[in-house]
C-alpha cells in the first residue's frame, strides 16, 4: 500500500488539488455562474505565498492564510463589479480577469520571474493537507445540501426571478459564493506552487481555468462526489493513456462534450442510473 502511494504520490497529490479547485467552481455552477477566474485567482495566491515564504521568511501556515485572503478579496472585488449585470458578463469578465493577471505576471519580472518563471520553490505542501482540505470541501457541500440555503441555491439554478420574488438578493448570494470560491482558488494556488516547486505565468492561464470548470461538469454538478470524480478522471486519464498531447486534448474535449450532451447529471451519477435501469429491466 505504501509502495503504491510512493509510486503514484504525484498523481494522487494532483488529483486532490484538482478536486479542491473543482469544488470552487462547482459552488458557482450551482447558482448559474460559470467562472473562468480560477487561473487568475490561483496565480494571485501562488505568487503571494512564494513571495512571503521565500523573500519575507514567513512560515507556510500564515502564507497560506494570506493567499486565501488575497483570493477572496480579488474575487469579491471582481464580483462586485460584474455580478449586478446580466449573467453572461460574469463568464466573460472572469475570463478577462485571468488573462489580465497572466499578462501582469509576465511583465512583473521582479516578483514572478517573467515568462521563465520561478524555480526552486520549497516543497511545503503535504498530501495530508490536501486530503484535509478536500474532506472539508466535501463536508461543507454536504452540510449545505439539506438546508434552506441549499434549497435557495437549487432554486437559483432553476429560476433566479422566482428567488428574487421570494425576497432574496440573488446577486448578493452569488457574490458570497464567488468570494468563497476565490478563497479556495487562492489557497489552491499557494498549495500548487509549493507542490510543483516551479511556477510560470502560463500555468495559470485559460486552460487551467477551463479544467477546473470541466471537472465538476464531467463528474456531476449536483452530485456530492461529482467534483472528485471529474477531477480524478481529468488528472488520471492523461497519465494512463500515453497518447500524444494532441490526442489527449481531443479526448478530453470529446469526453466533456459527450458528458454535457448525453449525461447532464454527470459521470458520478452513472452507477445510480445503471442501477435504476437494471431494476426496470
Amino acid at each position, binding site marked *: 500500500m505504501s509502495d503504491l502511494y510512493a509510486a503514484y504520490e504525484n498523481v494522487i497529490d494532483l488529483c486532490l488539488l484538482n478536486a479542491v479547485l473543482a469544488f470552487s467552481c462547482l459552488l458557482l*455552477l450551482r447558482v*448559474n*455562474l*460559470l467562472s473562468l477566474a480560477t487561473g487568475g485567482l490561483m496565480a494571485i495566491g501562488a505568487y503571494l505565498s512564494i513571495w512571503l515564504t521565500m523573500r519575507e521568511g514567513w512560515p507556510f501556515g500564515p502564507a497560506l492564510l494570506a493567499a486565501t485572503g488575497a483570493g477572496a478579496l480579488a474575487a469579491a472585488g471582481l464580483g462586485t*463589479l*460584474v455580478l*449586478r*449585470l*446580466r*449573467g*453572461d*458578463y460574469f*463568464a*466573460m*469578465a472572469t*475570463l*478577462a*480577469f485571468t*488573462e*489580465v493577471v497572466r*499578462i*501582469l505576471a*509576465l*511583465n512583473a519580472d521582479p516578483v514572478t520571474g517573467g515568462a521563465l518563471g520561478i524555480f526552486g520553490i520549497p516543497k511545503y505542501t503535504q498530501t495530508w493537507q490536501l486530503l484535509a482540505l478536500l474532506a472539508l470541501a466535501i463536508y461543507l457541500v454536504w452540510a449545505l445540501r439539506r438546508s434552506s440555503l441549499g434549497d435557495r441555491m437549487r432554486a437559483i*439554478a432553476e429560476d*433566479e*426571478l422566482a428567488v*428574487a420574488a421570494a425576497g432574496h438578493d*440573488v446577486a448578493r448570494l452569488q457574490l458570497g459564493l464567488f468570494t468563497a470560491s476565490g478563497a479556495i482558488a487562492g489557497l489552491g494556488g499557494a498549495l500548487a506552487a509549493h507542490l510543483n516547486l516551479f511556477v510560470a505565468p502560463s500555468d495559470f492561464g*485559460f486552460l487551467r481555468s*477551463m479544467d477546473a*470548470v*470541466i471537472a465538476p*461538469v464531467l463528474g456531476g454538478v449536483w452530485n456530492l462526489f461529482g467534483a472528485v470524480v471529474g477531477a480524478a478522471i481529468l488528472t488520471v486519464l492523461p497519465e494512463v493513456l500515453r497518447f*500524444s*498531447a*494532441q*490526442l*489527449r*486534448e*481531443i479526448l*478530453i*474535449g*470529446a469526453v*466533456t*462534450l459527450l458528458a*454535457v*450532451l448525453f449525461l*447532464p447529471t454527470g459521470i458520478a451519477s452513472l452507477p445510480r442510473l445503471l442501477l435504476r435501469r437494471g431494476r426496470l429491466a
Partner: protein
Amino acid sequence: MILQQLINGLSLGAVYAVFAVGFTLVFGVLNVLNLSQGAVFMWGAYVGLEMVRTLQLPLPAAMTVAVMAAGLLGVVTEWLVFRPLQRRGAHRWMGMVASLAFARILIGAAQEVFGTQVIRYPDATLVDATLVVGEARIQGLQVVALGVALAMVLALGLLLKFTNFGRAIRTVAFSETVARLVGAPVARVRGATFFLSGTLAGGAGVLWSLLFQSVSPFMGDTILLKGLTVLILGGLGNVAGALVGGLLLGLVEVGSVVAVGSGFRDAVGFGLVLLILLTRPTGLFATREAKRA
C-alpha cells in the same frame, strides 16, 4: 507617424470587427455565447493557407474556400453542440462549457494535422506593394485587409436589412416565440446564423494570418478574448456596436504600444472593458437594458 499608427490600428481593428460581428450575431439572434468561435477562426486560417500551399489556388479563391469551410464548421457547431442543448432546455453555462470542449477538439485536431509550429503564407501570394505617404509606409496588404473586412461586414448588414431571410433572422433575434407565431423558419435561421458567423470567423482568420504572417493552432485563443472584449464594448448582440468596437479596440491597442510598450498590449483592451462595465454596463452603443432582478 500618426497616419502610420492610424492605418495599423484600423487594419488590426477591422479584423477584430469581422470576428466580433460574427460572435455578436450568434449572441444577438440565439442568445448563446459560442466559445468555439476562436477555433473556427483558426481553422479558417489553416484552410486558406493549405489552399494556397498545396493546391496553389490564387489568394481570392483560397479565401473563398476558407470562408465557406469555416461557415460549414459553424453549422456543425450548431448541430452538434447547441441544438441538442437547446432542445433539452439546458442551463446557459452548459452551452459555454460544451462549446469550449468542442474548441478543444478542434484545436487538438489542428495540432494533429498541421503540427504545432507557427507557419506563414508563401511570399509569392502576398500583395507586396507599399504606399509611402510622408513618413508613413502603408502596406498594400493592410489596405486589402481593411477593404475586405469592411466589405464583409457591409454585406452582412445589407443581408440583414434588405432580404427576406435577413428579416427572418431579425425576427428570431427579437423573440423566438414571435418568430414561431409568424411562421419564420426558426431552425433554418439558427443554422444560417451559425453559418454566417462561421464565415466571418474564417474570413477574419485568413485576414489575420496574412497581416501578421503567422498561423498556429493556438491563434484562436487570443482572438476569442478580443472578441469578448469587443462584445462588451459594443453591447451584447449589437452588430453595429461590434464594428465600431472592433475598430476602436484596434486603434487603442496600437496607440498603447506607442505609449507604454508592447508588453501590456493585450491587457489594454480589458482595462477598457473594466472601465465600460463601471460606467456604461450595456456597452458604448447599447440600446438594450441590462437584466434586472
